[in-house]
């Protein structure tokens, strides 16, 4: 099967910092997590895929076509990046989600079609924020906002969602709510997910595949139980941890070990 997204020998980044030798392929329907310490290049990788950062070397293919050859709007119809930043203007939630239809507007089309509006409402229903449609985005709680951001991503009708720490700053109930939603979108709509996550436990629990970055390179890639072992975590994060198995899901989870328990 042809990969949806394929990255070959990628080198990219800021002058002071580079992603090196990234080789990666994401198939349709994958639920992929990107993990790694702060400054390991997770966000840079996501920005390079979404075209905000130009690769210095190497190529990125979307369905076999190099992404720099793909027109921006066409790209936005295939891959949606979910925002972390609320708009500064006083936009209503429904208007905000409708902005996700912009890549689908035809030349000289000025207003949303009834289908656009229906779709926006459907996306809001799917993420459980339909009742907020007349509220101002800036006044929503961070959990509600995150669900709304995902709804806007869905309104782009993409094949793949890119998310940069979608559960940062959320409490555990909202974290689970968002991750459950992403899982459901993945299994029911076949939406491919590529998610940067800080929380190793959530990453291990939900992702089918994990990409562990260290200093701009892929350190390990595989299923959660292959990637999250106490050896790799200790090597990459330079922190002592205990890794156990979740009794329900049999997925790995990480327990921190404070330094006072460590005897040298």
């Amino acid at each position, binding site marked *: 099967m042809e990969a949806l997204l394929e990255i070959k020998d990628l080198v990219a980044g800021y002058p002071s910092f580079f992603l090196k030798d990234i080789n990666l392929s994401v198939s349709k329907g994958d639920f992929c997590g990107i993990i790694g310490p702060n400054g390991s290049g997770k966000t840079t990788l996501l920005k390079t895929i979404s075209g905000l950062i130009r690769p210095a070397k190497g190529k990125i293919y979307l369905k076999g076509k190099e992404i720099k050859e793909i027109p921006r709007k066409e790209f936005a119809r295939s891959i949606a990046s979910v925002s972390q930043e609320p708009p500064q203007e006083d936009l209503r939630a429904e208007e905000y989600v409708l902005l996700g239809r*912009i890549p689908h507007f035809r030349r000289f089309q000025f207003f949303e079609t009834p289908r656009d509006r229906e779709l926006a409402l459907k996306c809001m229903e799917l993420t459980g924020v339909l009742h907020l449609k007349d509220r101002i985005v800036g006044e929503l709680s961070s959990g509600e906002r995150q669900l709304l951001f995902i709804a806007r991503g869905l309104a782009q009708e993409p094949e793949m969602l890119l998310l940069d720490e979608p559960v940062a700053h959320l409490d555990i109930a909202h974290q689970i709510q968002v991750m459950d939603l992403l899982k459901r979108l993945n299994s029911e709509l076949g939406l491919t997910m590529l998610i940067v996550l800080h929380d190793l436990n959530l990453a291990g629990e939900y992702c089918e595949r994990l990409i562990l970055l260290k200093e701009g390179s892929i350190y390990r890639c595989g299923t959660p139980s292959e990637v999250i072992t106490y050896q790799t975590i200790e090597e990459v994060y330079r922190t002592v941890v205990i890794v156990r198995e979740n009794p329900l899901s049999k997925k790995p989870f990480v327990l921190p070990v404070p330094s006072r328990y460590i005897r040298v």
Partner: protein
Amino acid sequence: MLNQIIKRFVFLFFLFLLVIGALFLSLITGPVSISVQDLINPDQKTFTIIYSIRLPRIVLALSAGASLSLAGVILQTLFRNPLVEPYTLGLSGGASLGVALNLLAGLNHTIGSLSFPLTGFAGAFMVILFLYAVSLKRGMMRLQGLLLTGVMISFISSSLIMLIMALSRIEGLHGIIYWMMGSLDENVWPLIGISVFISFSSLLYLLFNSLSLNALMLGYEEAHHLGINVDALKKRLFFLACLLTGITVSITGIIGFVGLVVPHIVRSLSGPDHRFLIPGSFLAGGGFLLLADTVARTIITPVELPVGVVTGITGGSLFIYILLKKSG
């Protein structure tokens, strides 16, 4: 949602009626009052008053107000900040410095009155290049920093204009003073024509790009993710803001705060969606400046106030109000 759209169209229509109303009010009021009968059936004297005194002024007020408001909308979306506009960013100051240099060099005698818009645009463009370079260097420019820089640019420009005035000979001085006091009292039809042309073509351009502007108000990265070529769009918008400001200032002199007051009110009434904000600001800007000018020239007849007095008082107060609300 459909209700919202209908409401906004009604709002636009209401603004249109307001402009028509302001137009009639301005036609009939002045040192010589003109009755409605005279308006329909004018004698020679009334005809002259209407066509060579009041109408040019009305047309210029409408197009200048519309241009300044559109420039305000563009800058507010580009900088994602409701307090920036041609005057507070120093664009108007730069444009007026350009025009003063033009008068000093006597370009208006060699190229003609077309030199005014050209040098006005060049002055505004220099300011934008400077602001752009500074904000690029410091990453994202903070609100206070940007506004302070703009105010300083205005100060520097007006000081330089005074320097130019001190250096120029008497004949040149007359031209500069006349222009600086410059109000909407302009009857060079080609200049008015340029102003009208620029305001209408900018309106069309912005309407066609209003969806991209909607994306842009979410910020650079978000607009990029929605498939907008942000760098190219930003460059074109900066250019357009300079064009609108430079040309307007070169014809009317500095009229502050129109670009702040009008978009602010339109936005609070019809929302931030550019598909309505742009035509709304176009109409309301023209109407606002026309009303302000009618007030300025009739409130203490026979003395005529500069229109900047009226816009300055309303706009300055609103500026302080928004600033307090934002920080409070």
